[in-house]
C-alpha cells in the first residue's frame, strides 16, 4: 500500500521540482536535499521519509515541464518516491525512465493527500475513496530501458554488443 504524501496541479515545472539556483549541484547522490526547495514544508517532509516507505506524489497534467535538467529526476529518485501523474512532459518522462524514477501514467487519476493507493501494472486503486483508475502503459521501447535497470546499463550492453560486432567484422 502506498500513501499520497503530496498532491500538485498541472504544469509543475522542473524549476519547481529543482530550482535553477541549485543546478551547480550535479551529482545524482547530492541532489535529493534540494527537492521542491522553494516549498520548505514539503522539502522537509521528503527529507524525513523513513527507509522503505511507499510514498506517492500525485500530479496533474504535464508534470516536469520546462528545462531538461536531470536533477529534477535524480532529486526525486533519491527519495524513492513514486510519481502518479495524469501526463508527464517528454524530457522528464524520458529522464525518469533513464534513471529509474518510478512513474505511473493514470490520465483520470484523482487522489488527495493521505489517501492510500494500491498500484498495479494496469490500474491505480484508491482504497480511501474506493475509485480505480486505468494506467496507461509506457511504450515498449521505454520499458526495455527500465527492465535493463536504466539507460546506463542499457547503453553499456549496447556498446559491448556494437563493439564486438565491429571486432568480428575486422577479423
Amino acid at each position, binding site marked *: 500500500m502506498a500513501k499520497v504524501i503530496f498532491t500538485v496541479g498541472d*504544469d509543475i515545472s522542473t*524549476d519547481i521540482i529543482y530550482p535553477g539556483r541549485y543546478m551547480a549541484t550535479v551529482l545524482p547522490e547530492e541532489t535529493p536535499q534540494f527537492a521542491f526547495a522553494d516549498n520548505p514544508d514539503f522539502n522537509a517532509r521528503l527529507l524525513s521519509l523513513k527507509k522503505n516507505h511507499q510514498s506517492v506524489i500525485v500530479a496533474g497534467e504535464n508534470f516536469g515541464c520546462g528545462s531538461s535538467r536531470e536533477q529534477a529526476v535524480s532529486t526525486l529518485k533519491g527519495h524513492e518516491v513514486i510519481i502518479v501523474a495524469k501526463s508527464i512532459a517528454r*524530457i522528464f518522462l524520458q529522464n525518469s525512465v533513464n534513471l529509474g524514477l518510478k512513474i505511473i501514467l493514470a490520465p483520470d487519476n484523482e487522489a488527495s493527500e493521505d489517501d492510500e493507493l494500491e498500484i498495479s501494472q494496469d490500474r491505480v486503486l484508491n482504497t480511501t475513496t474506493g475509485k480505480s483508475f486505468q494506467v496507461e502503459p509506457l*511504450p515498449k*521501447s521505454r520499458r526495455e530501458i527500465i527492465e535493463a535497470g536504466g539507460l546506463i546499463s542499457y547503453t553499456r550492453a549496447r556498446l*559491448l554488443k556494437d*563493439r564486438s560486432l565491429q571486432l568480428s567484422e575486422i577479423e
Partner: protein
Amino acid sequence: MNMTIVEKILSRASGRSNLKPGDVVEPAIDLAMSHENGALVINQFLQIFEGTPLDPKVWDASKIAIIFDHRVPAESSKTASNQKKIREFVNRQFIDKFHDIRGDVGGICHQILPESGYVRPGCVVVGTDSHTTSHGALGAFSFGIGATEMASVWALGKALNVEVPPTIKVNVTGAFPTFVGPKDFILHLIGKISAQGANFRVIEYHGETIRDMTTSGRLVICNMSVEAGATSGIVPPDEETIRYLREEAGVQDSLDMVVPDAGANYDEVINIDVSKLEPQIACPHTVDNIKGIKDVSGTKIDQVVIGSCTNGRLDDLEMAARVIRGKKIARNIRMLVFPASGRIYSQALGKGLIGDFMTAGAVVMNPGCGPCLGIHEGALGDGEVALSTTNRNFKGRMGNPTAEVYLCSPVVAAASAVAGVITDPRKGVN
C-alpha cells in the same frame, strides 16, 4: 509514402523508409550539444564504461559541442570547478567545438550553434537543454534530452529508442503590424494551444509570414516551441536558410535541403493570421498565460531584461535601442541587456547600440544566460516584478519564488523600461 520533414530526416538518419508516427528508431546524431551540465554528462558517460574493457572515448569528438553559458563567468567555486572538469575532458577527448568564457567566440549555446555553422538542414541535433528546439530554424530536427541520454549518445553516436513524433502543421499568414513580430506570434500560439498543446509532437512552420521571416525570427519561434510542449519546432529550409548559413555562419560546403513532401500526414493543422496581432505578454507564472498588451499595460515593474537565447540577437538589440535612443529609463527601474554572443556584442558595439543602452541607463552585461534561470547576474528581490524577453516565467525562475516574471518582445521591454510600467510601444513613449 509522403512524409513530414521530421519523418524524412529521421528516416535518413536511421536508414529506415516509410516512417510513421510511433515507430521507434535509432537516428545517427550529427551534433550533440551540452553546456555546463556537461559535468553531469561526463559523470554518467564514465559510468557507462565502468566494468568494461573499453576506453571511455566519445564516439566522434567532431560532433560534440560544449558551450559555457549558463553561469558565466562562474558565480561560485562549485561552478568554476565543474567548468574546470569539463575543460579537462574537452582537452582529453579533443573536442574542438568548445566555446569557453570568451568575448570573441563565447555566448549562449542556441546562438553559438547557428552562428558557427554547426547546424545544417536535415541534421539530427540533440542537446542537454530543452531549448535545443531552436535549431529547427535551420531545418534540422533538434530536440532536448537529459544528461544520461547524452552520455549514451556520446558513447554510441545515436539516440536510442526515439519515437517518431506526430507533426502539427502551423500555417502563418499576413504581415506583422508595426512593433509586432515573431515573439508576439509564438506567445500567441502558445496561449492558443496551451503549455502542453504540442506535447510529444513536432511543430512544422509554414506560410508566407515564415518565408518572409529572417533566421533570427525563426530561431525565436522554434526556441519557444518547447513552451507548448513540442519535441521540436522546425522550419523547412529555403533561400533565407541558405543566405544565413552562407553569409552569417560562413558555411561553404554543399547543403542538403530536406523539405517535407507535399501530401504528408499531419496530426493537426493550425492557421494563424498575424496581420491584426497586438503585442503579446505571458503573465506569471505560466508561459501560456497570454494576454494582449492592453490588458496588462500600466503594470508596475522593477527590472527589465533584454537578452537570452530567445531575444538577444542583433535585430532584437537594434529594435530595443531604437525605442530607447535619446531617452532615459525610468527611475526605480533596472534594465539589464545581455547580447546572446560575443559576436553580437561586437556588432552592437560597432552600431553604437551599446552606447545607446548605457546612455539611457541600462547595464550591458556579458553574453550568456544571465538571470534567465535565476542563478546570478540579476536575481529578483522579494515580491519584485520583471519584464523580460526570455522564454520562461515559472515561479522562481529568476531566482525568487515570490517574484513575478512577465515575458514580451524586445520593443515592449524597451518601451516599458522608459515608462517604468508595462507599456504598449505603439502608443509612443514620452
